[in-house]
């Protein structure tokens, strides 16, 4: 089975490539890139005017399985991913029970493979039961498929346990992925503490609760020499702490989210629970700092923190609602809108932050179009603007503040190992006839 993607702008930051060229896919792998490759018996995909990028990688999603399948499961989460142009995700362990043992890690890997819409890499808990006390069997979990260890949603309270976790994680090749927060300081908070929280009388989560958590874990990474990845950086001071740590050689990486670089706490003036997440939408100075961090590489990756919650859970009073919003379907559209169209990052850099950068942090074979790599691709129209509607959502949940918002850049085709996992209706006329139909093998739900 051969597919020839013709005439697209191939952007493959891993190989420093940004040019109009063709991509040949054979047996689910990248067979070669060259101008004017012969079609022969290949199925031809007309990619003129489209960007041909490696399949996007989201290193921070919540697929809620096991335990909260009414919010999301691996099948619905994978569907959301494929719609957003993602071919690989790393899912967080704050499930019920938490993903803290070999059997559960293996189960996530198997379920992801069975669904077959996206490569689902489990992140395992740092401590058993996410209780912050005893370390998990990190080496065994790595062998079972864990790509990192995280306390997301339930920060390790004890600096001593965190130090041991960072130290011990060195028996693996995987990073400790930290949700940095001094929980005692943010307790009772539901939004960013600032002018808007003062106005609305909603309990505040100060920047300092994040900054103290980041400073603590960065110092622990420094004294242990271990790898630390900081989740969803949202405060200007935290960006600065990480920037300085990198300058002095601390092995720290970090991510920023589309909602933190697109919105500020002013969005909360609506009292809409879909503007509630943790860390919260912060002030304009923080939003700009996240963008600067992504621009200068202080923040290595764009990740969504895709956090589905059922409609009924968000259709409540603001302080009663759970934290989190979905993000897979809007990640590229917001990144192109805010970062590229906003004039802060060029397109190739944004793609780097959404592909090879997170793949390298997790040590997974993804995010590149190198010959021999799996044919995981995302084809998108960078010029197309579109309005995000409920029907664009692949997730089981709809908790997003971006419905009705304009997005920049439309995902037209997502290929996983050469199979189409998402195909925009506008792509139909571009798919030529041939023996190697990209539609073959794609599951019905991919287009459902």
């Amino acid at each position, binding site marked *: 089975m051969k597919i020839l993607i013709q005439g697209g702008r191939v952007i493959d930051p891993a190989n420093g490539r940004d040019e109009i060229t063709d991509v040949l896919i054979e047996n689910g792998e990248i067979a070669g890139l060259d101008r004017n490759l012969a079609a022969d018996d290949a199925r031809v995909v007309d990619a003129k005017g489209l960007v041909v990028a490696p399949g996007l990688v989201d290193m921070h999603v919540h697929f809620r399985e096991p335990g909260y399948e009414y919010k999301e499961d691996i099948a619905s989460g994978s569907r959301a991913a494929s719609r957003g142009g993602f071919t690989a995700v790393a899912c967080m362990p704050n499930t019920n029970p938490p993903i803290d043992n070999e059997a559960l890690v293996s189960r996530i890997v198997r379920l992801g493979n069975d669904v077959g819409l996206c490569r689902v890499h489990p992140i395992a808990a740092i401590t058993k039961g996410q209780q912050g006390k005893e370390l998990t069997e990190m080496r065994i979990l790595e062998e079972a498929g864990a790509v990192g260890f995280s306390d997301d949603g339930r920060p390790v309270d004890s600096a001593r346990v965190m130090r041991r976790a960072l130290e011990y994680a060195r028996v693996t090749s995987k990073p400790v992925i930290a949700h940095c927060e001094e929980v005692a300081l943010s*307790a*009772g908070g539901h939004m960013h*503490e*600032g*002018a808007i*929280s*003062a*106005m*609305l*009388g*909603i*309990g*505040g989560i*100060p920047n300092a609760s994040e900054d103290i958590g980041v400073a603590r874990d960065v110092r622990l990474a420094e004294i242990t020499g271990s790898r630390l990845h900081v989740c969803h950086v949202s405060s200007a001071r935290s960006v600065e702490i990480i920037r300085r740590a990198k300058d002095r050689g601390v092995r720290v990486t970090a991510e920023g989210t589309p909602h933190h670089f697109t919105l500020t706490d002013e969005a909360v003036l*609506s*009292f809409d629970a879909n503007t509630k997440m943790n860390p919260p939408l912060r002030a304009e100075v923080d939003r700009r700092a996240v963008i600067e961090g992504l621009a200068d590489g202080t923040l290595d990756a764009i990740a969504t923190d895709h956090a589905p919650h059922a409609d*009924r859970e968000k*259709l*409540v*009073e*603001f*302080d*009663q609602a759970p934290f989190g919003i979905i993000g897979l379907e809007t990640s590229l559209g917001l990144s192109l809108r805010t970062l590229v169209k906003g004039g802060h990052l060029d397109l190739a850099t944004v793609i780097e932050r959404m592909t090879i950068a997170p793949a390298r942090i997790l040590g997974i074979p993804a995010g590149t179009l190198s010959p021999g790599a799996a044919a995981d691709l995302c084809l998108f129209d960078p010029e197309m603007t579109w309005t995000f509607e409920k029907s664009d959502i692949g997730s089981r949940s709809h908790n997003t503040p971006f419905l009705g918002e304009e997005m920049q850049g439309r995902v037209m085709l997502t290929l996983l190992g050469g199979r189409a996992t998402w195909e925009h209706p506008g792509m139909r006329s571009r798919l030529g006839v041939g023996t190697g139909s990209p539609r073959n093998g794609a599951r019905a739900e991919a287009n459902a």
Partner: protein
Amino acid sequence: MISERKSLLGIRELEPEEILEILDAAEPFKEVQSRSIKKVPALRGITVVNLFFENSTRTRSSFEIAEKRLSADVLNFSVSTSSVAKGESLRDTAQNIEAMNANMIVMRHASSGACHFLDRHVRARVINAGDGQHEHPTQALLDASTLREKLGRIEGLNVVILGDIEHSRVARSNIYLLTKLGAKVTVCGPPTMLPLEIHSLGVEHTTDVRKALRHADAVNVLRIQFERQHEPLIPSIREYARYFGITEDKLAELPRGITVLHPGPMNRGTEIAHEVAEEHAGTILRQVSNGVAVRMAVLYLLSGGVGAEVLN
């Protein structure tokens, strides 16, 4: 125009003219209070539901009296536990009430923004009787009505709001109302009770009570909201009473008289000394009377002015 609005959710979204419209409309209702028959048919045939998710005696009673004096059909719906603990969502509760064809819902709720949320999900008009730490618009209106009575104006007044600003919806509604009408507002209290960015609301702030009061025309004394505090914000009531309480000796130092307001319930000996409460009882009780008139005005204006002829 208030009458063109669907609901009264807060002072923050009102225009200054709308605030004055309510204050002016309250005046004839004050006169109704002194009649031997204190009832007008302005809301005849209109069903008002008082939906109270927090304990409240004075605000609920005040609304109930206002509604009854306007001849509305009144239903009191008190839910002491939160909607979540009860298992039914606020949206479901509200839609059930609306299914009984309620025209107006007066709601008090522990969550900031709950009235905005409710307003999006019901067709009935919503009047905010206090939402979390956000707003208590009718309290600010009755405070303003009392100040106007006593001092003749709002514009240009120096007003101090003293106490637990962080947790007070009375403080926020008062700040919005007074600044919109051109008063100069100073908030004062222990630093642990002042929001970090309170200056962004257009007010002065200080932790020095004596300094705050020196040039004040009026002071609005708030209760400490112990029930909303996660941890103690003051070392002791004794220390609070001594340094932040309104006492005779603090008032005696002032170059001129000052109007003392208190939204109640008062904790004598804590935020207000017994002697001060006694001396200013006339004003503080006048607030309560004016509360009924102001709430009658709000209910009347939002009801669309049915039966306007009765008042003239």
